[in-house]
Structure formats: structure tokens, C-alpha cells
């Protein structure tokens, strides 16, 4: 039996079960567990920190307010990623921001907006040279991911940043397994091409 504040070792299914009986601690635990992966996914999709926070917030509010409709035969992570991805894709479709610059979104007309729509990278504790290399590599890969089609982008982030299995990605994106494999293969090929200058 866990105390209300100690839910760290409890499975997602159990936390959701507690949340559906009205436990506020369980609601907060779900937010703590998924705020970083969900925010990272949405941020990399929309490239605007403030907007990403709003969409992440909408995702959590939607999920937590419908927690009693969650079906335990599905993974909770698949459910929340599906809602997050749909929120990001809906926004991109509305704004038609299919490919965005790492140096700021196309709607960035002022220095503040450029700052808001630039991904903030590189705060590791490596040596200066390693940090510089990592920063350059990180910048290149973020730029390359930003240039991918939204479907490819979602697949590659979920596979290589969130470490999700192919079948879970297929479930989240409502795509056949074969299509997900194709998207990831093509996305890797595009990334390889974009990172060509760093080879050797």
C-alpha cells in the first residue's frame, strides 16, 4: 500500500486507477511523469515555447478530465501521446507551419518572437570543445528534424527521442505499422542527407 504522495514506483495503470477514484496526488503524478515527454514532442513539432506550453496544458486538461473514460487495455502513454500529437498536428494544419526554421518560426517578425520560436539547446557539462561539437550537432539535428514533414517528425521524435516501439507509434498516429516503418526509414534518410556536412 502506497501513501498518497509516494506513487513513484507505481505503474501507469495503477496511477490512472487511483486518479479515476478522485485522488489528486495521482493526477499530479501523471502530470509529473508525462510533462517532459509530452512537452518535448509538442515543442519539437510547433517550435514555439509558449504555444507548446499551451498545447501541452490543453493535452493534460483533456486527458485528466476524461480519465474515467480511459480503457486500461491500451497503454496510457499511447493515449496521451495520441492526444498531444493530434493537438500539434491540428495546430500545424491551421497555421500551415509544415517546415520551420530553427532560428525562429516564419511568423516571427520581432526579436522576441524569434527568441520564442528558437529551440534552446546545449546546457550540458562537457568540455568546451565537446560542448561546441555537441551544440553544433544538436543544432544541425534540430534543424534537420524541423525541416521534416510533420508525420515524419512525429515518428522520428517518438522513436528516437521518446524511445517508443514501432507498434506503439503506429497506435498513437493511427497509421499501419508498415507506414510507420517507411516514414522512419525515409526520415532517417533525410536526416542523413541533412547531416552530410558532419560526416567523417
Amino acid at each position, binding site marked *: 500500500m502506497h501513501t498518497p504522495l509516494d506513487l513513484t514506483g507505481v505503474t501507469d495503470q495503477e496511477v490512472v486507477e487511483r*486518479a*479515476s*477514484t*478522485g*485522488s*489528486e496526488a495521482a*493526477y*499530479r503524478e501523471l*502530470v*509529473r511523469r508525462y*510533462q*517532459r*515527454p509530452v*512537452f*518535448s514532442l509538442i*515543442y*519539437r513539432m510547433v517550435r514555439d515555447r509558449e504555444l*507548446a*506550453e499551451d498545447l*501541452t*496544458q490543453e493535452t*493534460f*486538461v483533456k486527458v*485528466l*478530465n476524461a480519465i*474515467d473514460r480511459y480503457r486500461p487495455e491500451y497503454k496510457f502513454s499511447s493515449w496521451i501521446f495520441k492526444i498531444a500529437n493530434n493537438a500539434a498536428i491540428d495546430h500545424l494544419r491551421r497555421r500551415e507551419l509544415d517546415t520551420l526554421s530553427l532560428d525562429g518560426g516564419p511568423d516571427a517578425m520581432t526579436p522576441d518572437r524569434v527568441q520564442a520560436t528558437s*529551440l*534552446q*539547446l546545449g*546546457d550540458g557539462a562537457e568540455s568546451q570543445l565537446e560542448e561546441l561539437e*555537441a551544440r553544433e*550537432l*544538436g543544432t*544541425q*539535428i*534540430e534543424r*534537420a*528534424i524541423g525541416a521534416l514533414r510533420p508525420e515524419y517528425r512525429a515518428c*522520428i521524435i517518438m522513436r*528516437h*527521442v521518446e524511445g517508443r*516501439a*514501432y*507498434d506503439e507509434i503506429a497506435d498513437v498516429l493511427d497509421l499501419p505499422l508498415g507506414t510507420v*516503418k517507411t516514414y*522512419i*526509414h525515409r526520415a*532517417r534518410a533525410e*536526416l*542523413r542527407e541533412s*547531416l552530410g556536412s*558532419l*560526416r567523417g
Partner: protein
Amino acid sequence: MADHFLNGPTPAEEDPVVHRALATLPAFAPGPVFEDRVMSRVWQPLPPKLRQLVLAWRDYVDSGRVYGPLGALAVGALIPLGVAIGLVVTFSTQIGSFLAWLVGVGVPFAWAMARADIAGVVSTVNTYIAALFPSGTALMAAAIGSALVLAGCTFGLYRTMNPRGAMRLSR
């Protein structure tokens, strides 16, 4: 091997540069008060017992079993309606003469009684007010005081329904 079959070649196998680049991608985090912002917009969870009742009712509705009792209620409501229509048709002459009496005698009589009662109440209240506030100035001061108390109560009620903290959190 099974993972390789399911998930294809790893990026490390396919291209070490892509693999190294993907490995540098950091996880981003939302702002520090994010959790509280979300919780301020999540419905207050119901107490467990009440929630069980709500869930049981929802299951009952979703299962379709609710339509039987609802149909019975609808039929039950039709029975008195049918009886009422039957009574009106059967006793239409008596009902007609009763309505004529009501319009011609009953309503004017009731109105005269009510008017007399209202006049009596107004007169009594007027007597009390005149005794309590003998001058026009005192009456005016009492009216202003009452208006101020009413405004204060209204503001207090508004603040109770819209606390400042909640307004700030719900962006």
C-alpha cells in the same frame, strides 16, 4: 534479433552520425508552475463514494438498461393525461358553466379581496415607517444605508464566487 525484426535496423547500424546526433537531443520541460496551471483547470475530483454513484449511473445509461424504466415512466405519465382528457370530454357542460362562473363572479371577488388585503398591508407598513423615521432626512439616510449594505453584500457574493487566486491561475 526479435527487436531487430520488429523495429528494423538501429540508427547506429544504419548511420552512426545520425545515431550520435539523435542521441544529443535533450528533453525539454515546461515552466515551473506548469503542474499547478494544469491542476487549476482540471475538474475537482468528486469524493470516491459520489464518484462511484456517478460511474454506476453512467454504466447503467451506457448499457441501455435505462430505456426500460424510462419507457415505463413515459407510459405512466400518459395515463393521467388520458384520464384528464376523458374527464374533460365527459363533463364538458359542467366544466363550461364552472368556467363561466369563475370569470363572472369568482375572479372579480378574489381580486377585490386581494386588493383590500394589499391596501391593508401597505397602510400598516406606512404607519411603521412613519413611526421609525419621523423626518424625511432620516428616511433618506436609511435608504442610502440600505443601498450601501446591498452593494457590499453583492460584492462579497461576487468575490466568493470568483476568488482572486482562481482567476489568476486559470489564465
